[in-house]
């Protein structure tokens, strides 16, 4: 066991059982899976994706590039870093051979999202972040502080409890300050425009199977801040050498963190290879914890303080040396050393843990995403944020602490407070920086040696496999791969990334990206500053798809719009169709004599027969309705519609078509004139919002001088067409005071009437060719009036019908459905509706487009009827119309396509509507419909196939 008996932030009084790669282990609350594995002496965690090499734990946080695991229980989750999984009872995981596995069953967990607003958002609760948050909190600002760890402290968590009393006090103060929100286990993963930061909070993962069912497992915080302070710290980076991927090779700060935070001494004979002073403290603390430690440092001018410290605790220091390789299989057993930089005087030293430090990469991801500029600092070997964020608008984005390249603890503390003061000043708040806690003398005072990879020639045998100098462990990409990219002529870091795949794995190159650039720059003899970095793309750390989907799943994925009569349709067995977001009854299948349900054709045959021979009713409430008021309403509508509206008299209704600027049909509907200054328009169901927007745009931006106001009344009115030769009797029964005679209430007029005390507007309009009355009542009464009509129609066998029957009825009459018989390339003239296009009006929307060359072509596609020669054959909607049935030579000239096709009771067989090139000139011709290999002979007819003379509309 490598767990120490004391120390760390773990709870030794509680034992958590878990399983890894099929073996049982124990750990404690406060552990990560990685620390618990190390505590159990498990170093090999995973297998590399391409080369099958054993891989271990190289970090203690989100930058882990190697220790990838698959969670199996409580629910399978692919590819997580062992270093970011908090241990819980019953955890089952296994090491990954590079690829994760998705569960084969639905995820039962809940996820959600929530918005939060603040004056100052602080990302990172390390020393700088805590100082920033406290300064802002004391100034009375609304503050959100997010941190990925379960507790605050940041880098302090890896120390021997440095400032732990202070962090506890600060946390207590922050959590008790109103308007301050501290979010732990929360990773800010993306900076978007204008102070919008996305963060993922892992809320119940650490509870394992004990997580409550009703709580969202993970939550996306949509944080909108006026000022953002990034105190995101830095990631240590390694130095590359041969066989640097063996389990037991670890970043120096990680080794220290496992010791101090988790009470795990990850090795007994430890070699620390560092190019800078920051790793010495790890060496000293590990030695004091009982390990035998050797430090290898390529520099010869050791810092006197650290030389003395090493001497004090018995650490052997090998200045002027470097690590050139390792031995071991499942775990490192030894290290090859050589003089730096010559490579001479090589030796092998035994060890069971190799800690490496090649310097630090400031965590500048969010800053870069906010368009912050980065500049290469040759001394630190790092890209640092340039103060000031050009083009970021009013939202200030500041970087502080190690993320800004600050090395000392005192500097981080002071910097955090100062940035908060600056941020508050930009908000017009005068604030004082809070006093930092006292800290000891900082002993990392100088920049280290920038060394990407040790300078040793490797004799490659020509195969990629002989190079074991791994730059990106997860991608198995090596120094040789980088050099190969350079040799292939690549000069851009983005090309190298793509060529080698370095930086594209789970860790997104947090430790490897810069090293690859460094190797490239050295190889090409160019400046790192000129080479630049690859782009830091969101997310900073991986986010599950489910977390992003949140609660927008299943029943609440997308709004379901229903009419006021919807519950009646459900009770009466309607089968529904999605029309945009609306649910509309498609048909109302009845029980058959055999106990089953009618199929669609049977239901439609019955429903259409009722409408043509008796009476039937439809819920047309989904039609868009727009109230248009104002003295210029008529003029406005004249400009919008292709036909004249202003001449319509109150009490009358007119069918009308509107086109886009390009002259193509946009929508159609009816216009009812209520008074001189008031109209009500209808739109098609799917276009209601689009049409209102279209009208508003003209009213507000093009013709603001017109006195006209538009108000949506779609849901104000329930709309119930009562259709069929017996509809008059039904209307007479429900509205006894209304004179329903044709003389008193003619076609294309409307009347106010009372239906059992409810004020209704009844229109004599017909989308079926039959005598029909469209009843409009305030939608509160929709279901009651529907029921009243239904009841009154019982003696006449009134039959509710759905959209499919509506489509058949209108198609028999040749009435087009916009969006089905048209597709955005069809003009009113194409539909044979020149009559709806005013010749008198000087202009209306789309008029000018009608005279373009393409619109004047005689061979445009026209809407025509098609009658299959064999009237039992149903044309496919979408069948292509061709002139020559011989299709052996491809491509075949297509004349158009079938837009609508039905079986018709009234017509005694099948029929269709089609858009056909020069269609009106082909009436009487025999053409062919081609559908999935079948050739169906058809006769071209006019589009109106039923009651061409219009005798039925008056009953």
């Amino acid at each position, binding site marked *: 066991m490598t767990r120490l008996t004391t120390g760390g932030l773990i709870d030794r009084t509680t034992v958590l059982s878990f399983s890894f790669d099929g073996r049982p282990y124990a750990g404690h609350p406060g552990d990560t899976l990685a620390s618990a594995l190390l505590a159990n002496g498990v170093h090999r965690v995973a297998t590399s994706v391409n080369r099958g090499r054993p891989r271990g734990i190289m970090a203690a946080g989100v930058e882990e590039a190697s220790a990838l695991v698959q969670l199996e229980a409580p629910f399978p989750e692919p590819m997580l870093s062992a270093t970011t999984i908090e241990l819980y009872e019953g955890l089952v995981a296994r090491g990954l051979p590079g690829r994760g596995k998705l569960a084969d069953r639905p995820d039962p967990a809940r996820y*959600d999202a929530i918005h939060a607003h603040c004056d100052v958002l602080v990302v990172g609760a390390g020393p700088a972040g805590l100082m920033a948050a406290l300064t802002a909190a004391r100034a009375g600002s609304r503050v959100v502080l997010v941190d990925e760890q379960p507790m605050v402290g940041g880098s302090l968590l890896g120390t021997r409890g440095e400032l732990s009393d202070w962090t506890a006090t600060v946390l207590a103060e922050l959590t008790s300050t109103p308007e301050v929100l501290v979010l732990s286990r929360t990773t800010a993963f993306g900076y978007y425009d204008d102070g919008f930061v996305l963060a993922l909070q892992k809320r119940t993962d650490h509870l394992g199977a004990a997580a409550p069912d009703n709580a969202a497992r993970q939550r996306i915080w949509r944080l*909108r801040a006026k000022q953002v302070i990034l105190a995101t710290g830095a990631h240590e980076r390694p130095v590359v050498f041969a066989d640097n991927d063996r389990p037991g090779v670890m970043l120096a700060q990680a080794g220290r963190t496992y010791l101090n935070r988790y009470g795990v001494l990850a090795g007994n004979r430890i070699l620390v290879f560092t190019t800078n002073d920051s790793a010495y403290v790890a060496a000293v603390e590990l030695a004091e914890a009982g390990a035998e430690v050797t430090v290898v440092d390529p520099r010869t001018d050791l810092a006197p303080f650290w030389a003395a410290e090493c001497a004090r605790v018995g650490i052997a220091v090998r200045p002027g040396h470097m690590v050139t390789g390792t031995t071991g299989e499942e775990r490192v057993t030894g290290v090859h050393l050589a003089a730096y930089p010559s490579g001479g005087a090589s030796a092998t030293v035994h060890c069971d843990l190799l800690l490496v430090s090649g310097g630090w990469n400031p965590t500048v991801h969010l800053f870069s995403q906010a368009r912050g500029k980065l500049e290469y600092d040759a001394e630190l070997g790092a890209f640092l944020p340039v103060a000031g964020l050009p083009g970021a608008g009013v939202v200030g984005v500041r970087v502080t602490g190690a993320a800004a390249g600050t090395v000392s603890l005192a500097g981080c503390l002071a910097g955090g407070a100062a940035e908060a003061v600056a941020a508050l000043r930009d908000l017009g708040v005068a604030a004082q920086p809070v006093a930092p806690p006292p800290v000891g003398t900082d002993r990392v005072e100088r920049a280290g040696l920038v060394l990407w990879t040790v300078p040793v020639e490797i004799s490659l045998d020509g195969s990629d496999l002989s190079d074991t100098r791994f730059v990106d462990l997860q991608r198995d990409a090596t120094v040789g791969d980088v050099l190969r990219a350079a040799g292939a002529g690549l000069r851009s870091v983005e090309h190298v990334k793509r060529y080698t795949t370095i930086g594209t794995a789970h860790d997104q190159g947090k430790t490897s990206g810069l090293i690859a650039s460094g190797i490239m720059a050295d190889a090409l003899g160019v400046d790192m500053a000129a080479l630049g970095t690859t782009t830091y793309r969101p997310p900073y750390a991986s986010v599950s798809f489910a977390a992003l989907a949140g609660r927008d799943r299943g029943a609440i994925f*997308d709004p*379901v719009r229903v009419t006021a009569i919807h519950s009646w349709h459900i009770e009466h067995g309607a089968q529904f169709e999605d029309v945009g977001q609306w649910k509309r009854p498609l048909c109302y299948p009845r029980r058959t004599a055999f106990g089953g349900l009618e199929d669609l054709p049977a239901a439609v045959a019955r429903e259409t027969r009722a409408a043509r021979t008796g009476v039937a009713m439809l819920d047309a409430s989904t039609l868009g309705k727009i109230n248009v008021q104002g003295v210029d309403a008529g003029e406005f509508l004249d400009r919008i519609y292709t036909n004249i509206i202003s001449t319509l008299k109150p009490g009358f209704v007119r069918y009308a078509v509107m086109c886009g600027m390009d002259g193509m049909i946009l929508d159609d509907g009816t216009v009812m004139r209520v008074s001189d200054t008031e109209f009500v328009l209808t739109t098609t169901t799917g276009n209601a919002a689009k049409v209102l927007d279209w009208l508003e745009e003209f009213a507000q931006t093009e013709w603001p001088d017109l006195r006209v106001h538009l108000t949506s009344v779609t849901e104000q009115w329930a709309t119930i067409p009562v259709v069929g030769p017996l509809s008059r009797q039904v209307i007479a029964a429900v509205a006894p005071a209304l004179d329903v005679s044709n003389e008193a209430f003619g076609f294309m007029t409307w009347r106010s009437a009372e239906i059992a005390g409810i004020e209704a507007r009844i229109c004599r309009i017909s989308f079926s060719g039959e005598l029909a009355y469209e009843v409009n009542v305030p939608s*509160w009464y929709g279901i*009651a009036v529907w029921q009243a009509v239904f009841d009154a129609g019982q003696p006449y066998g009134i039959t509710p019908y759905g959209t499919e029957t509506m489509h058949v009825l209108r198609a028999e009459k040749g009435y087009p459905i916009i969006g089905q018989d048209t597709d955005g390339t069809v003009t009113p003239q194409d539909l044979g509706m020149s009559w709806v296009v005013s010749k008198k009006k000087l202009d209306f929307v789309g008029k000018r487009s009608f005279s373009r060359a393409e619109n004047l072509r005689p061979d445009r596609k026209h809407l025509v009827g098609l009658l299959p020669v064999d009237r039992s054959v149903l044309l496919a909607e979408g069948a292509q119309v061709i002139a020559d049935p011989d299709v052996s030579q491809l491509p075949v000239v297509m004349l158009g396509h079938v837009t609508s096709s039905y079986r018709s009771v009234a017509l005694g067989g099948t029929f269709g509507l089609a858009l056909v090139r020069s269609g009106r000139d082909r009436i009487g011709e025999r053409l062919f419909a081609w559908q999935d290999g079948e050739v169906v002979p058809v006769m071209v007819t006019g589009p109106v196939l039923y009651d061409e003379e219009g005798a039925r509309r008056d009953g």
Partner: protein
Amino acid sequence: MTAEHVSPSKLLRPLSPLDGWQAAFDALPNVVAVTEIAFMAQLNLRVDPSGPAAGAVAKVLGSALPTQPCSSTRSGEYQLLWLGPDEWLILAPEGAGPELETALREAIGGEPGAVTDVSAQRTTLALSGCASRELLAKGCSIDLHPKVSPMGTCVQTLVAQTGIIIVARDETASDFLLVVRASFAQYFAAWLIDAGVELTGAC
């Protein structure tokens, strides 16, 4: 079912969009309370706030129209909600719609303007309780903090892909009126209830 089996009084009962949902609302944790306020009269009013009609309208309503964007005022039984620079939604007691519509139309007279009865276009929900703001934050991107959105604030926005009007009715952001289009109401209610699943007994 035939006519004989249904009494006329039952037939012509108005039905609100969220009829039957109260039991589900009542099952929410007691940190929020949701109630549909059905059948409120609602009139959409368009008038130039600086024109003569605005004054005439104010007389009818007993109060000047609020001209501060995103605000509302109360005037006796009326609530006047700002919807746009020349647009308001007037909420009035059940049944008051037709008379008020006539009065407002008369007040506007020949001046530019419009009055539209939209009583059944939307329904209203009262949302109260100490977790109200949290509940709305799960879908609403507007800052409803009382310092930012004090009592009387009236915003139109999207919650759960649904256009809604939110009126802040107290100084602690724990009492809101939500006005939602009728066809979206059931979806929105289902969304609210789902959002409430996680709320616990305490704020």
